[in-house]
C-alpha cells in the first residue's frame, strides 16, 4: 500500500497503489490525511473515534472518489482527521467500513474537493490496483 504526490500545475495529483482494493482505499485515506496535515497519523493525540461509512457507486473509480469525498466532508464537519479503515466489505461498487479518526489540529492545506479528473482505478501488470486522484486545492 502506498501513495505518492506528483506535480500538477494548479492542484495536487496523488498516485495510490494497493495489492487489493482494501489497500487501495487505505492508501487513498492515508495520502489525503497526510496532505491535510503532514505526518498527522504518525503523531496522533486524543481518543480515537470510530464512525461508520457506507458508499455505493456505479463503478470502482466512482466508488473511490465518492468514498474519499465522503471522508473529506466528514473531516470538516466532525472536526476529525482519519487515519485507519476497518473494512467490513469492499467490492467494485460498494464499501462498508468504520473510519478511525482523531481530533483535528490546524491544517497545513485545505482540500476543497476530491475530483474525478484523471481518476481511473485499474489493475497493473503485477496485479496491484492503482489510480490517480486529483485534489482541488
Amino acid at each position, binding site marked *: 500500500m502506498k501513495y505518492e504526490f506528483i506535480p500538477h500545475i494548479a492542484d495536487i495529483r496523488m498516485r495510490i497503489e494497493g495489492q487489493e482494493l482494501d489497500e487501495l482505499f487505505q492508501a487513498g485515506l492515508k495520502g489525503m490525511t497526510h496532505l*491535510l496535515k503532514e505526518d498527522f497519523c504518525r503523531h496522533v493525540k486524543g481518543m480515537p473515534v470510530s464512525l461508520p461509512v457506507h458508499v455505493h457507486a456505479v463503478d470502482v473509480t466512482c466508488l473511490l472518489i465518492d468514498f474519499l469525498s465522503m471522508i473529506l466532508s466528514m473531516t470538516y464537519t466532525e472536526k476529525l482527521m482519519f487515519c485507519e479503515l476497518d473494512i467490513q466489505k469492499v467490492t467494485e461498487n460498494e464499501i462498508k467500513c468504520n473510519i478511525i479518526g482523531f481530533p483535528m489540529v*490546524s491544517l497545513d492545506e485545505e482540500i476543497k474537493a476530491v475530483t474525478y*479528473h484523471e481518476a481511473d482505478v485499474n489493475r497493473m501488470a503485477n496485479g496491484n490496483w492503482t489510480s490517480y486522484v486529483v485534489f482541488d486545492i
Partner: protein
Amino acid sequence: MKIYKSHIKKLTPYFWEIPKEFYNRMRVPARILASEELLDAIMEDRSLVQLVNVASLPGIRGASLVMPDVHEGYGFPIGGVAATEYPKGVISPGGIGYDINCGVRLLTSSENINDIKEDMEALSKELYKEIPSGLGKGGWLKLSANQIEEVLTEGAEWAVRNGYGEPEDLNFIESLGRLTMADPSKVSDMAKKRGADQLGTIGSGNHFVEVDYVSDIYDATIAKAFGLYKNQVVVLIHTGSRGLGHQVATDYIKKIMAIMADFGIEVPDRELACVPLDSDVGQDYFKAMCAAANFAWCNREIISWEVRKAWEIMFGPDSQLHLMYDVAHNIAKIEKHRINDHDQEVIVHRKGATRAFAAGNPELPLAYRQVGQPVIIPGSMGTSSYVLAGAQGSMEKTFGSCCHGAGRRLSRTAAKKQVNAPALKEKLRERSIFVEAGSFKGLAEEAPIAYKDVNTVVETVHNANVAVKVARLKPAAVIKG
C-alpha cells in the same frame, strides 16, 4: 488528442482559433485570447485540449473561450468561458468550479502610502489577528440553522442587516451581492454544516487579503470614477464560498454524473458532467449554486468588516474603507449577448474568468455606467495587481468576460522545490512588503515565481480592447491562510 500550432488559426494579434473541423465532437470553434508569446506558454500544458472538450458540450453557442491567464484545470480549463443556450443548453458544475463565486473585491481608503508606510508591518499583524484562515478551526461566527438559510437567501445583505457591513457596499457588488434564484432547500445538510462556522474566513491556497497602493494611473477619467488616485492605499480580498460551495459542487457533480446518460450526454472527462438547465437536476444545481454564491458574497462582506475593524484600530474611526467593487470569477449567469447578429439569452459559465461589462450596461452601478465595470486582476504577492474597466471588445468577443489573475505557470510541487519560503518572506520584507502566512509551505506554493507575468496578461486584454487599464497596484502587506 495532440494540438500543434499548425492547428491554430490567427484571427487577430490577440485572438486565435481552433476551428470546429479540428475534432469531430466540437460543436463550435475554440478561441484563445492571448498574445503569441502567451499562446506558446499556454500550449505547454493541457489547457487547449480541455478547451476543445468544452467546445463539444451540448447547446454551446459562439465559441468556447480561454483568457490569457488560462492554465490546465480538471475538465474545464481555469480561465475558461462557455456560453450555452438558455434554457435548453447544459449547465455544468465543473464549468463553475468547486469554489463557487470565488471572487475578489477592492476597498479604497483615504490614506496615502507615504503617510502610513511605517505602519505596514503593524497593520499586517493586526489584519492577521482579525481575519481567521479557518483551516480546520472555523471562524468566530457560528451560524444557527436558521441563520445559514438566511445567508444563502440574502447574500451580502445578511451581513449588512446584522451590522457586519455598510449599506452602501451593496450597490458595488456584482448582482448587488444576491442572486434571487437561490434556494437553500437545494443545498445539502452536509454543505450547510461545512459552512456553518466559515463566514469571515479566507481559507488557504491562493486566497488572501492584501494591502496595496496605487502606483500608476493609466486612465485618469475612469480612475476618478472608481475613486482611485496615485499613492492611495487600497485593500484586495480574494476568497469564495469556502466548504459550503465546495460541498455543493461535490454533491451535484456526483448527482449529474449519475443521470446525464438519461439525456444522451457523454463527456470525455467526468468533470465535464452536465445536464440541461431546464431539467430538474439542472434547476436544482442552479438554485444551489446561486445560494452558494450568496454565501461567498456574505463571506467577503464579513471579511471586509474584519479588515475595517483592524483599520480602525490602526488609523482611527475617521479613516474609512469604501467598497470600490466586488466581482465573481467562478459562476454561471443568465445573460443576454449578441451571437451571429442576434441578441440571445445564454448561460455564461465563467471558471477563473471575471465579468467585464462595457460602459452602458444597466447591470452596472450608476457611478460606473459611463465608464465600464471595474475589473480587478490580482497578481502574485510580490508583483503588481491591476484595476481595469470592461470594454466593448468583451461584449463582442468574450461574452463580457476577462482574465482573473496572472495564471499559474509552476506546479505547487515545483514551487516548493524552488522557493525557500523564510528567505522569500525576508526578501519581500526588504522591499517593504510584509507577509503574514499560516505556513511557509503555503507561502512557497504561492511565490511570485509560480505565476505568469501579470503585466503581459493585462497588456493582452488591454490591447484586445476586452478591458482597458485604469490603475496599477503594488503590494505593501499580504495576509495568507
